């Protein structure tokens, strides 16, 4: 089941979340997201596998704002990572490495490889 998988990979207790929405309020990427961070948590709790095809985990920039704001100490960035990993571990890449512009800063290129390829 999706919930167990996310719990195992992230090490987070999703039931701790009381849906206050603070994570979403502070998230800088909500404008690009199809599901808000708090909705992602709810969807996982309901084992709704459609969340695996959402844009949200791929738009998340691992900025850690949500985790700093969460009153329940839920590390949402880890939950986003778990959703990405479920895909990446099934040998699906999210970007084409050959298309990367090599003049970009190395930290940007390495980060992209780490977050978008399995």
């Amino acid at each position, binding site marked *: 089941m999706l919930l167990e998988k996310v719990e195992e990979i992230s090490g987070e207790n999703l039931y701790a979340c009381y849906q206050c929405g603070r994570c979403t309020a502070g998230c800088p990427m909500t404008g690009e997201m199809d599901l808000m961070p708090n909705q992602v948590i709810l969807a996982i709790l309901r084992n709704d596998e459609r969340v695996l095809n959402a844009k949200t985990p791929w738009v998340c920039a691992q900025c850690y704002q949500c985790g*700093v704001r969460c009153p329940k100490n839920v590390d949402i960035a880890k939950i986003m990572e778990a959703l990405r990993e479920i895909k990446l571990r099934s040998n699906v890449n999210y970007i084409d490495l050959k298309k990367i512009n090599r003049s970009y800063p*190395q930290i940007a290129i390495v980060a992209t490889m780490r977050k978008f390829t399995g």
Partner: protein
Amino acid sequence: MKLPYYPGCTLKKNAKNFEKAAIVAAKHLGIELVELPRWNCCGAVSSLTSDDVMHHVAAIRNLVRVQQMNDDGILDNEYRLVVLCAMCFNVLKRSNILATSNANMLNTINSFMDTEPDYEGTVEVKHFLEILRDDVGFDAIKSKVINPLKGLKVSAYYGCTLLRPREVGIDDPEAPTIMERLIESLGAEPVDNPYKSLCCGSYHTVGSNKEVVARRAYRIIEGARRNGAEAIITSCPLCAFNLDNRQALTEKLYPGFKRMPILYFTQLMALAFGYESEASFDGNFVDPIPLLEEKGLIGMKVQK
């Protein structure tokens, strides 16, 4: 004071100006930054899964080098590792916290690195700004200023990795002041920006989300400008790229947008300490020289 220093990949290519300025500024304050021998890429972003040990090996291997420098007599009982790049700092510190709080994980990493000495958990990862605040002190910095940056209004941009997550951050994640205090000690005027810790879009600048980054840059730069800022300082080469180089795209998306110089905090220090050429302003995308000239801050006293 002789301190081991981890540059990271980007400081050797896109952000040479950051490093060059830092080394002279540190020297001016009596700090010798000694580059780690055989350092390797830290991985740039932390792996956040609980079952992934592999992606922490690269970070920990760098910490082993600090132990070796002490063992080899290059350092005398100095286990603070100084990092300039905010992203590398975040990754190295986070892996260090993980490995030193989880004996099992540390054991796995040490067994994997079977040709290296074991990591003993002795290293403390420090951002250079922390050394400036806690070991040098802002009053001492002020007393070392040769050319006070009078009349220059500077806004600090913290981004994410200097502040978050909480256990890694070097200041209050919601209301940081460390860079403002530095700006002040250099004789410039710190200007607040409500977006000073809003993510710039980070590595999304690589893929198809360039526009998102350029729009983020607009918000951040305009936030600073509204309060009167003439320049922005940062400690992250990726934030610098997104705020500086991406202004070319920001300009296209927002007609009338005016470019603003984005500097590394060490460039400002080098300038105030009298090392104008080492401040390496030619490495910045938006040329800061016209602004600095207008303020009378170019062609000041030079250190030999």
